[in-house]
């Protein structure tokens, strides 16, 4: 069954900005789906329309087969959303924010209190339940929004940059939590600028740019599109200029001790190291310049920029 089905979705703002140009998107039930794109690509508009925060110009959206027009009560009751920006009353106590959200979904008070306790404990916020939300740290506020989005047990959860501004330790614990939620059957749609996050967790992904979906496939197939990877090599000895290598074209000298080399898919790292050794260049350490998904993303979105510039 499809958790989300978007057909021919258009959005033109009053300013004339065409934010969405007829996108189609399907997300299977149980999926962990990444919706990626540069700033201003249309991701938040798309999520805003699904959540009922933005009026669409035309097109259809269905959540688990329920139209957000004709069956909006059913459709919305299956949806949970964690927006990019904090959107709770910062003067309200933490517990009240989550309990009230359950109430808006029609969850009776007794169950709402129980679920609130469950999620606040799970997300490490229970000891702060009586604090005003404005007193929480940035990471706690993010977790509060996740608890609030889950309190009515949605089957589809949209996470719009859930780990933005969160330190790496907390980010990793949030990844574990999201994976756990997904394992329990909740379909998750994730937008993020941390592509490492999407690559680690998502099984399928779509890249949206300038209001169009320019790529939509499984993460595996997406990463296969990567024809080459760029590595940064740290050298033992000083280097005055970038070496000339027979099989590798793009070599950039970064400083006396490091170079950047693009390795085509047909060649291996061993080939590179071997060729450097023939020139008496010894590699001490190396790393990927960017993660693989990031390279695909840059390639795809840059191509679109070039095309639009032309």
């Amino acid at each position, binding site marked *: 069954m499809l958790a989300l089905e978007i057909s021919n979705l258009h959005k033109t703002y009053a300013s004339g900005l065409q934010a969405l140009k007829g996108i189609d998107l399907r997300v299977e039930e149980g999926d962990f789906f990444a919706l990626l794109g540069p700033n201003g690509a249309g991701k938040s508009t798309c999520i805003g329309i699904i959540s*009922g925060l*933005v*009026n669409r110009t035309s097109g259809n959206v269905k959540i688990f087969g329920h139209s957000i027009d004709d069956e909006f009560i059913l459709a919305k009751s299956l949806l949970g959303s964690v927006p990019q920006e*904090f*959107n709770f009353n910062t003067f309200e106590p933490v517990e009240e924010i989550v309990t009230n959200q359950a109430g*808006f979904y029609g969850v009776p008070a007794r169950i709402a209190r129980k679920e609130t306790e469950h999620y606040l404990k799970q997300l490490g916020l229970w000891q702060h339940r009586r604090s005003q939300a404005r007193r929480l740290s940035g990471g706690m506020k993010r977790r509060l929004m996740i608890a609030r989005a889950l309190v*009515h047990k949605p089957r589809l959860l949209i996470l719009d940059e859930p780990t933005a501004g969160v330190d790496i330790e907390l980010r990793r614990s949030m990844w574990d939590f999201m994976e756990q939620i997904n394992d329990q059957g909740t379909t998750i749609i994730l937008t993020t600028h941390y592509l490492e996050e999407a690559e680690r967790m998502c099984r399928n992904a779509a890249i949206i740019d300038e209001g169009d979906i320019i790529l939509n496939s499984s993460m595996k197939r997406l990463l296969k599109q990567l024809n080459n990877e760029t590595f940064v090599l740290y050298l033992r000895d000083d280097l005055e200029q970038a070496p000339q290598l027979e099989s590798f074209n793009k070599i950039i000298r970064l400083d006396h001790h490091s170079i950047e080399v693009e390795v085509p898919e047909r060649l291996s790292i061993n080939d590179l190291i071997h060729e450097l050794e023939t020139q008496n260049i010894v590699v001490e350490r190396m790393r990927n310049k960017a993660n693989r998904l990031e390279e695909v993303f840059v390639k795809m979105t840059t191509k679109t920029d070039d095309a639009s510039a032309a």
Partner: protein
Amino acid sequence: MLYRFWVAYLTITRKEIMRFARIWVQTIIPPVVMVALYFIIFGNLIGQRIGEMDGMLYVDFIMPGLVMMSIITNSYTNVVSSFYGAKYSRHIEEMQIAPVPDIVILLGFMTGGVARGISVGIAVTLVSLLFTEFSIHNPLIVLLVALLTSCLFALAGLINAIFANSFDDITIIPTFVLTPLTYLGGIFYSIKLLPEFWQQVSLGNPILYMVNSFRYGFRGTSDIDLLTAIIVILFFIALLFSVSLTLLARGTGIRQ
């Protein structure tokens, strides 16, 4: 389904009541202090020189109007500040994302406004006992007019908040429209004292109907026919309710 909406309605209402109850020093006390000053200055000091109005002591005459003024101002202010605040800090999205029909949101905010209007009205009435003798001609009329008037001004506050784009916009209507209409709505005088032309002009002020019907409930005397007053109030409630609902459905001011 109806039970779900009922829970949502109760949640919004409780949230709204908690909002003003939590800051009672800012929401309940100031109107009480202000009305106490009105009683001291206009009721006692100046009122003693005025003598009687409509066959009763001046302080007894102005008492229902002062209570009504507090109800009007507080019902309006509660909703306009709460709804605009929710828009400004974007926590209105909590309700927009949830399966809450617009009418439930509307009723929830309206009930919050009514709750504050009535709470302040009761507090002001208690303070008035220090200055006047407590007597009610018809408690049902008092209750009905108080509820209907607070509904009406809660709705007006909601419409103001929907269109407001800044905190300045939520003070313009109370300052330049609501306050003048309230003062000219027969709180401090009977319109019978006015020349014929200005009596007719005063009949165009909806607040006159509320103040007079409320005074009828307390004192059994009014410049306006009670039934006409109730019909006028109901008409405005129906009008503002429809406008508010349409604006919420369109997403005016809250959806891009």
